[in-house]
């Protein structure tokens, strides 16, 4: 039973990744768009916010990675909702496969895409002048933390996907929620420059906390605090949204 579940999940993850081959537009989502953001932020805002683009990059790269990661969690919901509305789920459910493998396969594939996007941004950042001041263990820890966080947050996107009728609605919901959350944070600028009320929000915003954790792990600086808080946030997302999503999944499917 469990080996079957693993095999089914692997097959369905493969299927989600192969889709990219036929829909190069998807590449835009998790390659071109992050690169574009990175370049824009570095060269448009870099000089104004910090003394030089290179210096700004040291601050902003972890933030850009985190923002991109949060937006990319929407893919999980959009993909699931598309499968349901196109009838692909009916086909899968008429097969003798592990019940949750369609969900698990999608999530596994999306974690792989996330890893790719993080690596891409990191490498490009290094090309543009970002310096990793720590060692390979910290870089690995950064990946693990970011991917774990993305996994936890993607349950929110799964829940939305189960509740709305069309994939576009997942997208709209996500954008409306994520734009303010990712920008009203310490991802791109130091919250000290913000008005008091916004600053209080930015300080508790998980975007800031995760960006701080990544900054600490990659550039040195405080690690224990932001990492612990990030893990708590991730656990919170998981504890709240995973059961709700699974319940909604059972009900809808």
């Amino acid at each position, binding site marked *: 039973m469990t080996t*079957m579940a693993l095999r089914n999940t692997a097959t369905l993850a493969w*299927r989600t990744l192969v*889709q990219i081959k*036929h*829909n190069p537009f998807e590449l835009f989502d998790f390659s071109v768009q992050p690169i574009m953001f990175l370049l824009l932020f570095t060269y448009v805002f870099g000089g104004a916010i910090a003394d030089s683009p290179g210096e700004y990059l040291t601050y902003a790269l972890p933030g850009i990675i985190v923002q991109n990661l949060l937006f990319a969690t929407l893919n999980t919901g959009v993909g699931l909702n598309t499968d349901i509305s196109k*009838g692909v789920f009916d*086909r899968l459910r008429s*097969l*003798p496969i592990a019940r949750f493998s369609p969900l698990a396969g999608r999530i596994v594939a999306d974690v792989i895409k996330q890893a790719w996007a993080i690596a891409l941004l990191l490498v490009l950042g290094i090309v543009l002048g970002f310096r990793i001041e720590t060692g390979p263990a910290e870089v690995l820890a950064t990946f693990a933390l970011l991917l774990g966080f993305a996994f936890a947050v993607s349950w929110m996107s799964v829940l939305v996907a189960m509740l709305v009728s069309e994939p576009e609605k997942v997208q709209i919901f996500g954008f409306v929620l994520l734009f303010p959350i990712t920008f009203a944070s310490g991802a791109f600028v130091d919250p000290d420059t913000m008005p008091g009320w916004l600053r209080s929000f930015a300080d508790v915003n998980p975007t800031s906390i995760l960006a701080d954790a990544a900054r600490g792990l990659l550039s040195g600086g405080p690690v224990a605090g932001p990492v612990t808080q990030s893990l708590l946030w991730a656990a919170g997302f998981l504890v709240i949204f995973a059961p709700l999503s699974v319940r909604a999944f059972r009900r809808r499917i």
Partner: protein
Amino acid sequence: MSAPPAIVSGMDTTYAIHAEGLVKRFGDTTALDGVDLAVRPGTVLGLLGPNGAGKTTAVRVLATLIRPDAGHAEVGGFDVVRQPHQVRELIGLTGQYASVDETLNGTENLLMIGRLLGLSRRAARARAAELLERFDLTDAANRAAGKYSGGMRRRLDLAASLVGDPRLLYLDEPTTGLDPRSRNEVWDIVRRLVADGTTVLLTTQYLDEADQLAGEIVVIDHGRVIATGTPAQLKARTGAQTVTVRPAFGDELDRVREAVARVATGPVDVAGEVVTAPVSDPGALAKLVRDLDEHGLSVAELALRSPSLDEVFLTLTGGRA
């Protein structure tokens, strides 16, 4: 006609599909209102009904996609609610709307299903190639299914439901939207599958399709079974045959009408130059011919025909098709 159910370890195996009293509600809509179905192995059951009759809902219950609110159904002796996994091992489903992955190409769609069904990579590839060949999709094997025409997509969908060589096949309106040639191809495929022992549950709005393929027809409307039988039995249900006469000369129309009235068992209808009337006596046609001859009336057209299934259908569903 059928033998008493054989009981094998608590499971009824006389029927490939056996449903009793299926009820399914969606809010205020009662999609199924106590439907009974029985399909013997190796036969084709045609499930016929107008839009919204509950055909798709019935298929979805029998394919374990939704649970009935009441009633009971067994597929291959397995309960659809309590043993869905076993049921899924037996069935192939082609839903009303093609459910292929539009972003994958033809091969990949079939490969995915083969792998999910536990075939090795090599076996899944071979099976995919074989099915693409059989469904005339080899040329489109490497194109994304989203770029297929409607007919190609349907064929790929049908191929996908056959990857696991299912003993039972559900086809929900398999030829809707297909051109006559593609429809004939699908019919041939179904006939071949049945010849090989597959049991088929087919829903359709085309009565000739049910007539062509199904040994037995169940007509449903508003979630209820309103008639069951072979195509011939259903045709017999409306009773009378119809005689049609077109006089050779227009001025003899009245006298022809009188002659027809002498053998008719119901009201005589005159539409334009054509006289029609129901008859039930087997000798009616011969009698009519003699009568016409004796009165010196000549006819351009004379026919006796059984009601079409469409007429039966319209009669049964109260004219609402």
